[in-house]
C-alpha cells in the first residue's frame, strides 16, 4: 500500500506557554488540560507525580513540556470524549491526560496530581505514559514511568523486561510520603550515566 509521507517534527521551542499551558503560566487564555488528571470523585489512590528534567550538563531544564497519559485505578484508559472548555472543570471525570511546563515551580519541577493506575492487562505492570517536548528537542520524546514499589508486577512487564537490565532503573519512580501525601519522584535525564530510556514508536 502506498504510504503518505509523515509531516516532519519540529521543536516546540521556548514560547509555547501562552497556548499550551496558559493558565499555569498566567497568560490570558484557557487550558484544556493541566496538572490534574482526576476529578474529586474519581476512585483510586491519590498520588503526586513530580520530578525534574536534566540536560547533559547537569542543569535542570526550565522550558520543557511534560504530558502524561494513563489508565485509571482499574487499568482502563478513558474513552469518553473530553468535553468542556477549561481544565478547571471538575465534572469531567477521570481524564487520565495531563500537561504541565517546567517553568513555574522552584527547581523547574513538573508536578501532577493523579491516581495510581491499575495494570492494563496481562504482562503489564502499572505505568504512566510520558511525553516530553522542549526547546532543543526536534522530536517528541516518549518514555514510561513505572513504580519502584511494584517489584513483582514490574518483573512481569513485557516492555520493561525488553529494556536492557542496566537501564531499567531509569524508568522507576520512587515513592516518598510527605505530610500524608504520596509522591512518586520521576526525574528525566536527557544524557549521562542515568540517561532515561526513550522509545521509538
Amino acid at each position, binding site marked *: 500500500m502506498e*504510504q*503518505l*509521507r*509523515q*509531516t*516532519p*517534527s*519540529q*521543536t*516546540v*521551542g521556548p*514560547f*509555547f*506557554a*501562552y*497556548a*499550551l499551558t496558559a493558565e499555569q*503560566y498566567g*497568560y*490570558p*487564555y*484557557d487550558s*484544556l488540560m493541566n496538572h490534574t488528571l482526576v476529578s474529586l470523585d474519581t476512585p483510586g489512590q491519590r498520588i503526586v507525580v513530580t520530578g525534574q528534567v536534566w*540536560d*547533559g550538563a547537569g*542543569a535542570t531544564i526550565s*522550558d520543557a513540556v511534560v504530558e502524561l*497519559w494513563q489508565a485509571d485505578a482499574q487499568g482502563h*484508559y478513558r*474513552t*469518553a*470524549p*473530553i*468535553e*468542556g*472548555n477549561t481544565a478547571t472543570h471538575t465534572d469531567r471525570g477521570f*481524564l*487520565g*491526560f495531563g500537561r504541565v511546563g517546567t517553568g513555574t515551580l522552584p527547581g523547574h519541577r513538573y508536578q501532577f496530581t493523579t491516581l495510581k493506575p491499575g495494570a492494563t492487562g496481562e504482562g503489564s505492570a502499572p505505568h504512566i*505514559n510520558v*511525553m516530553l517536548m522542549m*526547546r*532543543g*528537542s*526536534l522530536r*517528541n*520524546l*516518549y518514555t514510561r514511568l513505572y513504580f519502584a514499589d511494584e517489584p513483582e508486577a514490574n518483573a512481569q512487564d*513485557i*516492555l520493561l523486561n*525488553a529494556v536492557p537490565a542496566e537501564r531499567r532503573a531509569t524508568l522507576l519512580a520512587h515513592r516518598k510520603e510527605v505530610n500524608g501525601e504520596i509522591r512518586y519522584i520521576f526525574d528525566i535525564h*536527557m*544524557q549521562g550515566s542515568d*540517561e*532515561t*530510556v*526513550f*522509545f*521509538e*514508536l
Partner: protein
Amino acid sequence: MEALNKTSLPPLAAPVSSADVHPPHLSPAYKSTILRSPTQPLMPVRELIRDLSMPVFGQSVLREFDNDLTKNARINGEPIGERIKVAGRVLDETGRPLSNVLIELWQANSAGRYVHKAEIHDAPLDPNFLGGGRVLTDADGNYAFHTIKPGAYPWGNHYNAWRPNHIHFSVIGHQFEHRLVTQMYFPGDPLFDYDPIFQSVPQHARELLIAKFRMDWTEAEFALAYQFDIVLNGRHKTPFE
C-alpha cells in the same frame, strides 16, 4: 553567515520510508540540541505499545473565536498585520482523514514578537493579538483558522540568526503515536537557507513543512489563504487488523 545548505544533495528519487522525514535528535547547528538530545539509541517499542488510543476531544472544548486568532484577544481594535486563512486536512499514513484531532496553535505577531514573558526581542507587542488558538478537525479531517501572518524574528543560536515566518502546531490524534509537534512555514521564505531548525529536516522532506498558497481559497477583499495538510505517524485501526 553562509547558507547552511549549499552542499546539500538533490531530492531523493527513490521512495523513502514515510518516517524518514523527521530531523535527527542531535542536530548540532541547532545548538540547544547538543545537551538536550538522547545519546543512546531509542528503544523500538512499536509492537509493544499497540493500539494505545489517546483522549478524544469533543466540540464543546472549543470556544467562539478559538479558531480565529484575529478575534480571540481583541481589546480595543483589530490586530495589526496581514490577515490570512490557514486550512488543510489531517490524515494518517494511508490517507485516511482523521476527525476530532486537536490542533493547538501559537505564533509571533506581525512584528515578529511573541507574547511569552521570556521573549526579549525588541519589537512591539500588539495589544489585540495573543497568537494562541486551537481547532478540531471535522468528520472529513478538515480544519481551518484565521490569523495574522507572523513576522520573522531574531534568536540567539548564532550571530544574526533569524527564524523564518512560521506557525507552531501541536497535534493530538487518535493514537499515542499520532502525537506531533511541528511548525508550518510559508512558501518562498528567504530565511530557509539560514535556519538550522528548518534545515534539521532531511532535504527531501522540507517541502512537507511549507504551506501551499491557495489563490482559489482566498477570501476576496479579506484574507489570503494557505493550505497545510498534516500526516500523522501510525496506521489507523481497521476492523480487519
